[in-house]
């Protein structure tokens, strides 16, 4: 693997961690978030500031996870007040609020010009890839574990019908906040890794378009499905890189793909997969 392929692989890993976080919130627990990039940004800026202050990288990453998760819980309380479309708009607002604050903080956070000169994590590129890969494994394992646990069952209940879940004594508020805490913590981890990877971060890296890109990775892959999200993320990250045609028209491609998937296959790649399995399964029965 050359440097270019290594960098691509690292970016794919970071995006998968980010997307798995959103999948926990939106896919498992049914709470739509259009501000996921803000938590990615919180993670990245936490690492940026702490690393420049001289803290060791493990401490920085850990702080990024805690910070994003903590602010995630605060933002998550919004989901206790507002639902569905209102929540989508509120989280979108949180994204813009985050950007607005970062842009005006020129002293600590570098404002419009961003933070540069962030120290290295202490590993070379292959070592970094191993770390990013471990992060992917951990987050996937956690996601799969939650899906099979009692908590996953409760998330499902909240996502399907909140009022009925409440009636059946599921503690809806606690589960929603847990989903937000875990999902945003993953975004914080992704942000921390991203900051160490690029060593230069700017407000625009964490704008509304990033939130939408992450959402499209989850939606294209199949909302709620861990393998689907991983495939969707890898696909949407790599396809624009593979051909120059697609990279020139990257956003057009994203937009059109997002629209086409929602219009023709709202269950995403995972849904198509399930359908194929069903068809073949039925054929098998017929024999």
């Amino acid at each position: 693997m050359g440097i270019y392929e290594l960098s691509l692989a690292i970016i794919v890993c970071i995006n998968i961690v980010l997307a798995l976080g959103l999948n926990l919130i939106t896919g498992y627990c049914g709470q739509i978030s259009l501000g996921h990039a803000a938590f990615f940004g919180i993670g990245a800026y936490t690492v940026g500031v702490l690393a420049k202050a001289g803290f060791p990288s493990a401490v920085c990453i850990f702080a990024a996870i805690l910070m994003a998760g903590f602010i995630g819980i605060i933002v998550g309380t919004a989901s206790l007040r507002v639902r569905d479309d209102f929540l989508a708009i509120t989280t979108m607002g949180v994204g813009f609020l985050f950007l607005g604050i970062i842009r005006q903080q020129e002293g600590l956070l570098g404002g419009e010009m961003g933070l540069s000169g962030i120290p290295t994590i202490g590993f070379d590129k292959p070592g970094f890839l191993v770390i990013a890969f471990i992060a992917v494994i951990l987050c996937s394992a956690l996601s799969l574990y939650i899906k099979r646990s009692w908590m996953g069952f409760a998330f499902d209940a909240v996502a399907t019908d909140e009022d009925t879940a409440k009636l059946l004594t599921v503690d809806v508020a606690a589960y929603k906040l847990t989903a937000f805490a875990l999902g945003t913590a993953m975004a914080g981890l992704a942000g921390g890794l991203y900051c160490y990877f690029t060593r230069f971060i700017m407000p625009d890296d964490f704008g509304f378009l990033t939130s939408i890109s992450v959402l499209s990775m989850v939606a294209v892959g199949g909302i709620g499905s861990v393998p689907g999200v991983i495939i969707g993320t890898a696909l949407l990250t790599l396809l624009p890189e593979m051909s120059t045609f697609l990279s020139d028209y990257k956003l057009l491609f994203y937009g059109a793909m997002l629209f086409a998937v929602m219009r023709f296959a709202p269950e995403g790649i995972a849904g198509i997969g399930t359908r194929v399995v069903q068809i073949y399964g039925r054929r098998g029965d017929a024999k």
Partner: protein
Amino acid sequence: MLYLELLVQGLIYGCMYAIIAVGLTLVYGLLRILHVAHAGLFTLGAYLGLILTNATGSLFLAMVLSGTTVGLVGMAIYRFCYKPILHKPPYVALIASIGLFIAMEEIFRLLFGPYGLTYTKVPLQQTVHFFNMNLRAVDLVIVFGSISMLGVLSWLAQKTRLGIAWRATVDDPQMAESFGVSVQKVRYLNFFIGSALAAMAGIFVSLLSNMAEPTMGGVPSYKALAIIVLGGLGNVGGTLIASIILGIVEAFGTIYVGDFLDRDAIAFAFLIIILMLRPQGLFSRK
């Protein structure tokens, strides 16, 4: 004096927000869809208006043609994009709409170039004295144009058969249909009017900044979403008041808290505070 000028600035922006947001809230009231692609129509309207004004020399003609074309495009969007996914969960339409909007922005960039177009001769730049203030003619046109368009809309909704059918469909689609209202016709009309208004807003913005650029739809559109949420989703009167309030809050906010929040962040901070206090929006019918 400063207060009055800020108030007038807020009013100008508020009127602009109002005609963008009305189309959006009409769509939400009827279909429960957050129609993000509305902002794409706003940009399309600005481009068409600017190109036609440069070609024909008449701003009025350009506004009429641009409004009609964009209205038809809005109807096509309903027919081909929203109609087939209406029965799906709400996030499906939302994400599809966002996708459509991103694709539209890119198409504008590819068609008209990334740097935006300008008027060869900018209309309505004369200075007008108004209560000791120097305003541009375009400012007055925006305020009075918006108010008269919304006035016509409200007359349509209150006094005509069409308007009654439209309000009935918003209130209870099934009941309206069983009384012989064609729900489909109402929806098409709704998209036509809403999109045409978005085109007008687009032209106004292009007049204010003498520019139509691919990304111009971004921020006003997200703000329009904030406004319709504030106005209590689907409530036209509430949306108008929320637009004006937001315009004024922004105008004052940029002066008093501009050091640590930029203009867009002020709008969304206001939105979040209001929603936490009143989750159903400022003005809700419930």
